[in-house]
């Protein structure tokens, strides 16, 4: 099973900050500036969203961002060019839906997409509508090209399904903090703790996502045992505000960098308090 060095390294020292943005939202150039701002703000891994027209796992914030990007002409090939052009230190993961991956292969299955992603410097894939049961062809292609395949564990995932998923996962496991679709929330669910407990026996970094929007959330999640935090809608909201208020690209990028720093520092505080607790125990 693949394990990209870049993703390993991202989780190696301290908690990983894993931000998500939709590539091409609201347009290609601004989006480049935004992703680079996340990197300056301390991102360890960046999840790059490649838009699909029917994003059933997404709440309205991200759904609207995907529509903005599609309207501005985003395609898989432009997405790969975007990843290639980026100047960032963080590892890159592509988040998209299975139909785009499959269709890219023009009848040859998912392999051509993975091959192209690897060439573009992508180190892992998250595919929210691809369950472990249907993932063999993609898993094999990822192994061949050294990409990690990241699965999402829901608060409801248990038993055989959890085992099957954990047998297939590499890089990190995406722990969904609560039921439902993506979207920023005001507080962090208790379901997180229960999920992290259930995953305790598996030796792979656990990154928690869905609903994290402040440094304070990040701190609590990491203090609660997460190895990383994934933040999507809160960042996409900043981009959406920029569109609504007609802000300059530089202004939006500054806000993204500042929010990233807050989230990263929150995660680090959480980590210190956790290691502190462990030492005094």
């Amino acid at each position: 099973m693949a394990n990209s060095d870049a993703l390993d390294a991202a989780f190696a020292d301290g908690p990983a900050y894993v931000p998500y943005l939709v590539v091409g939202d609201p347009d290609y150039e601004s989006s480049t500036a935004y992703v680079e701002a996340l990197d300056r703000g301390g991102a360890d891994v960046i999840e790059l969203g490649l838009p699909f027209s029917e994003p059933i796992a997404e709440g309205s914030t991200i759904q609207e961002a995907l529509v903005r990007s599609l309207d501005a002409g985003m395609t898989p090939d432009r997405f790969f060019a975007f990843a290639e052009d980026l100047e960032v230190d963080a590892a890159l993961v592509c988040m998209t839906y299975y139909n785009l991956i499959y269709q890219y292969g023009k009848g040859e299955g998912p392999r051509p997409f993975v091959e192209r992603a690897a060439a573009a410097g992508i180190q892992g894939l998250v595919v929210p509508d691809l369950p472990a049961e249907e993932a063999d062809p993609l898993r094999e292609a990822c192994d061949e090209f050294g990409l990690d395949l990241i699965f999402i564990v829901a608060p409801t995932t248990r038993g055989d399904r959890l085992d099957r998923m954990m047998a297939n996962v590499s890089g990190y496991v995406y722990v969904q903090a609560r039921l439902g679709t993506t979207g920023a929330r005001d507080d962090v669910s208790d379901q997180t703790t229960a999920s992290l407990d259930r995953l305790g026996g598996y030796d792979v970094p656990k990154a928690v996502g869905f609903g994290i929007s402040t440094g304070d959330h990040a701190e609590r999640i990491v203090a609660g045992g997460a190895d990383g935090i994934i933040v999507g809608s809160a960042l996409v909201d900043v981009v959406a505000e920029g569109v609504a208020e007609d802000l300059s690209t530089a202004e939006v990028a500054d806000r993204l960098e500042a929010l990233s720093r807050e989230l990263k520092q929150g995660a680090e505080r959480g980590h210190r308090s956790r290691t502190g607790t462990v030492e005094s125990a």
Partner: protein
Amino acid sequence: MSETDTRTTEETETARRPGRERGRDDGKFGRYGGQYVPEALMPAIEELTDAYERYVLNNEDGFMEEFRERLADFGGRPTPLQRADRLSERYDTEVYLKREDLLHGGAHKLNNALGQVLLAKYMGKERIIAETGAGQHGTATAMAAAHLDMPCTIYMGERDINRQRPNVFRMKLNGSEVKPVTTGRGTLKEAISETMRDWAETVEDTHYVIGSIVGPHPFPVMVRDFQAVISEEAREQAIEKTGGLPTDVVACAGGGSNTMGTFAHFVDDEDVALHAVEAGGSTLEVDEEAGVAPNSASLFAGEEGVLHGARTKLLQDSDGQIMESHSVSSGLDYAGVGPELAYLVDEERVDPVAVDDDAALEGFHRLSNTEGIIPALETAHAFGYLEAHHEDLGERVVVNVSGRGDKDLDAAIEETDQRDVANAPDMSMFTGGM
């Protein structure tokens, strides 16, 4: 193993089951079907699969008796198989109509909605959600939910709400909440996506009554099994009334629920030809650039892909983005089709054909003025096909009248006004100089 190898194994193991059993165990129809859903929905899908096997397939707690009894008393089954005298004469062929328009609510949709709402009750669920295109499935679900005393929320595209106001009113009359969906073009595919989002948050106490043979397993097989009562009756009625099986069976296809319901018990009768009539819209050409298909003919013009939980034939662009579809009838206006139909078309068991908006409108007027039956615009496509291809058919044809057209009168007036429909009534003297 390469992708191609995987496919061959899947085909031999599961696809070649007898017609009515196909896909029941693993949800695969050759390489189509499956369960492509977010992880958060998986437990609900597993729970549903288990309930489907226990109650529907194994009749636990007498589920099937209760379902059949309610279909009879509340739904009005069996529906007649009626000989259409004028059409038989016109085409010099025996034409029989399976009258699903006479089912309570005015369309075949109640068979499935009642089955699923009852199943939800047996499962101990407390809330029903559904999506609707033409509003027929929403109406049927609202009726079934009121009948079985379950709260119900229905998602409907904004554009469809405008096309189908009577059905919106009917859903509300029956106590359901109707939520407009404004994303995309505001039709069925957006409504399905939105309902899946609701379900992801509420899976623990909510059942999603999907409206056709689409979506993740077990929906395609379960909906087919509930709709198969159409062909079960039609087959017996045909033998009783005519002394034999029909030569041809015709049904319109959106997602394909009335289609598979009408075909299910005939699939193993290899001498019976099965024709699935899709919405050809204004043309079968697609506009890749604009991402628009001016039709809803996914069997005809679609390509393999993954949408709303299943691998099937879809209207999509070369990148895999789903296209906006079009049809004069909102119930056929969907970019995908049930995986079982996709499979049966590949196997050449089902003949996919397309009828355009103009021919469907002619069919609408023809059935109305020759037989005294105003069909749904969806159903009218099947009669458009009959008009164009009756010479290619055998001597005894069964056409499923999937629904009645009351809901479509506004749309039919508007669409008729825009065209020169040969057999349409002349309304000019009644319009007060409009």
